[in-house]
């Protein structure tokens, strides 16, 4: 029915499709123009991001390359991101399994609870955690540092893994697992051979989103980091305020964007759930 270009039936008129394509193009342009400005500014001799650019220089790129603060901050962010993602993976999948495979009183509450850290404004989470650490945990010896940052990030990263795994579990249903058990496999064997392969790509998608969110998070991090820890967003925040450092920040951002294409593309290849993961 209809011309089958690339195997898809035509379901909307040509006019509608052109209109949608136009909006898509405009949307992408909207998204990428500021990023182009960032890239161009990183070559701008003017320190204060004036426009049109007053001159061309690779000076900022050279200085960024040698900037130790940026490298350390990057490393800290990666560590925090990995930690938060790991915790989110474990907690998120456990909660997703519980909600998907069992009927119990309060199932809906679990869903809402998991969403809450990301649904409430970051500043509320931030000051709540900061206050809790200062009043309840410091007497117990827990100090502000990488650990508190990771815990803070984990609270809102859990939902990203939870949603992806839950959606996948709902789609695959429990019958395969039952069949496996019927054939004599124990709980752990079933998980290893049947369940895990089915949810693996959902885990990857969730992990990637969780890492991205943790990597760029600033509000909760400001309140949970303390003086000694500087993640990349915190480094950016403190450097955008310093005249000679601000252009270096542009360089760092440009590099991040270019580098990030790789993991995002990879996750798309792995994921059979073609949506970019569930938020």
């Amino acid at each position: 029915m209809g011309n089958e270009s690339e195997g898809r039936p035509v379901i909307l008129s040509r006019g509608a499709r052109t209109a949608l394509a136009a909006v898509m193009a405009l949307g992408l342009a909207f998204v990428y123009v500021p990023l182009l400005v960032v890239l161009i500014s990183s070559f701008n001799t003017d320190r204060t991001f004036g426009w049109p650019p007053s001159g061309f220089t690779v000076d900022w790129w050279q200085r960024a390359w040698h900037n130790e603060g940026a490298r350390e901050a990057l490393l800290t962010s990666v560590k925090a991101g990995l930690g938060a993602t790991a915790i989110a993976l474990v907690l998120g999948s456990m909660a997703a399994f519980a909600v998907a495979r069992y009927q119990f009183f309060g199932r809906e509450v679990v869903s809402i609870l998991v969403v809450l850290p990301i649904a409430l404004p970051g500043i509320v989470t931030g000051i709540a955690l900061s206050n809790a650490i200062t009043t309840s945990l410091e007497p117990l010896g827990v100090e502000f540092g990488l650990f508190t940052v990771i815990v803070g990030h984990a609270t809102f990263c859990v939902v990203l893994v939870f949603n992806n795994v839950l959606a996948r579990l709902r789609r695959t249903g429990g019958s395969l697992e039952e069949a496996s058990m019927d054939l004599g496999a124990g709980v752990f064997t079933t998980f290893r051979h049947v369940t895990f392969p089915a949810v693996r790509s959902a885990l990857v998608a969730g992990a990637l989103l969780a890492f991205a969110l943790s990597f760029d998070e600033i509000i909760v991090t400001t309140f949970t980091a303390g003086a000694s820890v500087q993640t990349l967003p915190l480094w950016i925040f403190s450097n955008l305020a310093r005249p000679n450092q601000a252009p270096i920040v542009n360089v760092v951002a440009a590099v991040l964007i270019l580098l990030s294409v790789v993991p995002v593309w990879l996750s798309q290849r792995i994921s059979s759930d073609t949506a970019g993961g569930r938020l």
Partner: protein
Amino acid sequence: MTRTKLLAITAAALIALTACGDDGGDDASADGGDAGTSTDQGFTPPDLKALDKLGEPEGEVNIVAWAGYVEDGSTDPAVDWVTPFEEETGCQVNVKTAPTSDDMVNLMKTGQYDVVSASGDASLRLIASGDVEPVNTDLVPNYADVFEALKMKPWNSVDGVAYGIPHGRGANLLMYNTEVVSPAPDSWSAVFDDASANSGKVTAYDSPIYIADAAVYLMATQPDLGIENPYALDDEQFQAAVDLLKEQNAHIGEYWSDYTKEIQAFKNGDSVVGTTWQIIVNLAQADKAKVDAVLPKEGATGWSDTWMVATKSEHKTCAYKWMDHIISPTANAQVAEWFGEAPSNSKSCAETADAKHCETFHADDEAYFDQVWYWTTPISQCLDGRTDVQCKDYGDWTTAWQEIKG
């Protein structure tokens, strides 16, 4: 209702934990007026002792400072008085710049910093809450050369006990775009009564302490209000200042606390007139912005900053060494020139690159600084000595500031 009960019980448990574990050492009583040990400043500082003697340098020092006070060459490779200090003492400097005094007080409360460059509107609050301790000036050799006029002042000492080492002082200036605002202004009316001439491009400092600037203006333009001290405002005087600022708000484009944003705004033409610090003027002019600054005829607010040591600091030797270094003649001269303020060390005047720096900034001119109202924390006990009325305290100023911004 089981889940709700469970949540409630858990929450209650945590609350009980908090309520019990919280009080610790926050016993600084702020009740002024009690007989006996209370001070003119209206409070009794907690009983803390200064450091007896220096030990071995601890290897690092965490500093809270105004932007421009602790430069290590990253803003401008030629501007660096941190590296020599680090090489000499082995104390690695970690600096956190704070945009306002309120931020500084807050950062010091976390207990994670060792030294702070406190202005007068932060110093007494820090002393009262016990976040800083008295300073043993014998351990700071360069203190002997500090101008006498800065020693043992109401903002850096209590009852004859020194709480800090003077850093330097200066005034808040009026900056203007030389092409747009002409003739050159000489009065704060450019940002108050005449602000409509540049509506949408006026800027002001984003802190409740700015209310004092309005009060300074009213001292000259509405003398019947009887304002003697811009930090001692009773209900009527305070309301007049707040009304003036609400009128100004209509013409404000942006409030600033981050000095880079102010430089950018003046350079881009988004702001053309407003309060500033000398360092901002210098940096903007270096970036080819057409700006200049002036101390208006009504006088101005300003600051006299003090280096203070945190009570909970674990790096007190490095802290003392830093304080000694920053007021040493060379370093003090460098920072005073970079920031654009009067140094505290009398010997710095011979070391400034610009031989007339001390003269330009009135380093030894007490008559000049009588016109400058250093940032001070307003308290309910009127700072001008009046006892028949209650003045507005800083909490009132903060609430009013949020209302002014709308």
